[in-house]
């Protein structure tokens, strides 16, 4: 009797590209959803332009960071929805594809699809702020870190929910508090000084503060720069490493 054999070794990240493409196809078929990622930053930009046009550059930088931050909310929603409603975890993870490939493929796939609004905002920022090449590269690196932090956080959080309805409320609360209430769209200087160390430890507002200091919209003491930059790097790396561990840990439920 001929016995079929497995084709794929279970090496780390095996299947990432294929699952990424799956996610791109899935998300790409929901074209309206792509536009919804522009709603909140778009509304805020219009308000800023009406109420205080001088802050439009800061708001644009904030909008770019916010758009990458909310990709984490989409990872949270998608990961939980696929696990709870579609049992996609069972389908994909009881097989050679690794859990880290599932997490990364989903996160990058979502990022690719929702990147268009971010790129559009980036072009606007180059024209309006205007951004130098160095500042642009800094903003790109910070936005990437914010994305990685948010996607990792979103994936980790997604594993705790048993019902999709609960997720919508919590994810909206989490991403709006850290992405809108904190000084992401407005200068750090307008935020109460006693609470600034806290927001400098939150990745979206830390990234915003760093760009604001470079374009002259905020003044950061050296320790504040160190806190924002160090905190952002440390938190991003820590959460990403934990997300990989957690993705592996949660394949087999207790």
């Amino acid at each position, binding site marked *: *009797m*001929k*016995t*079929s*054999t*497995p*084709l*794929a*070794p*279970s090496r780390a990240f*095996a*299947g990432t590209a*294929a*699952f990424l*493409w*799956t996610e791109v*196809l*899935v*998300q790409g*078929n*929901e074209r309206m959803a792509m536009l919804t990622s522009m709603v909140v930053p778009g509304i805020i930009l219009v308000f800023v332009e009406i109420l205080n046009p001088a802050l439009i550059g800061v708001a644009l930088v904030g909008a770019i960071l916010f758009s990458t931050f909310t990709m984490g909310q989409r990872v949270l929603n998608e990961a939980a929805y*696929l696990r709870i*409603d*579609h*049992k*996609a*975890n*069972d*389908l*994909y*993870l*009881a*097989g*050679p*594809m*690794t859990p880290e*490939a599932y997490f990364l*493929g989903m996160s990058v796939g979502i990022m690719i699809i929702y990147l268009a609004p971010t790129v559009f905002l980036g072009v606007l920022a180059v024209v309006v702020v205007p951004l130098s090449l160095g500042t642009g590269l800094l903003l790109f690196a910070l936005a990437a870190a914010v994305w990685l932090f948010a996607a990792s956080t979103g994936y980790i959080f997604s594993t705790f929910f048993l019902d999709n309805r609960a997720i919508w409320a919590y994810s909206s609360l989490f991403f709006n508090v850290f992405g809108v209430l904190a000084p992401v769209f407005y200068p750090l200087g307008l935020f109460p000084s006693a609470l600034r160390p806290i927001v400098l430890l939150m990745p979206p507002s830390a990234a915003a503060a760093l760009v604001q200091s470079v374009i002259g919209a905020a003044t950061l003491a050296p320790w504040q720069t160190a806190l924002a930059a160090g905190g952002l790097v440390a938190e991003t790396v820590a959460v990403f490493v934990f997300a990989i561990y957690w993705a592996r840990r949660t*394949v*087999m*439920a*207790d």
Partner: protein
Amino acid sequence: MSGEALRSVDLRKIYQSRGTPPVEALTGVSMEVHRGERVALLGRNGAGKTTFLKIASTLLRPTSGSVEVFGFDIARSPEKARPYIAVVPQEGKPFFHLTPREQIYTYLRARGFARETAKARTEESLERMGLNEFADRLSVTLSGGQRQRTMVATVIATEAPLLFLDEPTIGMDPFARREVWSSLRSLTQKGSTILLTTHYLDEAEVLSNRLYIVERGAVLSAGTAEELKASVGGTLKVLIPSGAVQVEQFRSFGTCVTDGLSLTVIVNPHTLGDVMEIVERSEMTATVGPVTLEEAFLRAVGRSINED
């Protein structure tokens, strides 16, 4: 790849959650599935079938006991067992915004199949499951049965050495169910092994080489369909719609089961004439048919409930 396709020894699972008493879902299940077999798990809702399947497919941690898949302990080294398995999860759905063709192809690619192989197997699986007509429609527009066929087509396209199917034909019409049966038979002919759960006893009977009846987390009985049916005590069943009141007259011929006014008597061919004579004498009517797996199942599970 060595050993039995699957071997579990004294497998136990207790679900613990804060604020609620622990639930013992498996109380010591031992079983073997040989290579190339099609084995069905039968049981009532909540009997422990899905829990067993989830543990065996590396998706749920056992409380104690062991499961080996091709010799790999699934608790100690699940990553070694996973390349050999594929799962149709209970109530799983394809991606709503993919077509069945995209769903199968991308799944095969995610499992590491080369493009050409994935493409060929996708077409083969679509054909085999009768999905060609819907192959390029988004799954969100398909009926429940068509979505389920897509899920099964996705998994059988892998031709994995060990396939776990949790209620694979639920919601399918009789034609689609037969297509699944045929596909599963051809898979085992190619060398795959199949462990499935089902509530359709006809499906279990025609499809499985062996069956396990599970009740309250334990194996009640196991064997071929014929062996399980033989345990009922006869090969024929006589259904007497108004016979319950006269049950005492039939007790000496075999097992009697009453259900409201009706009576079912399990008999062997050589006593059938005597039973029918009483039926005729009492001016009752009766229908005679072969004992099915349903009688064996109801008897095994019913006896277990009554013993409590």
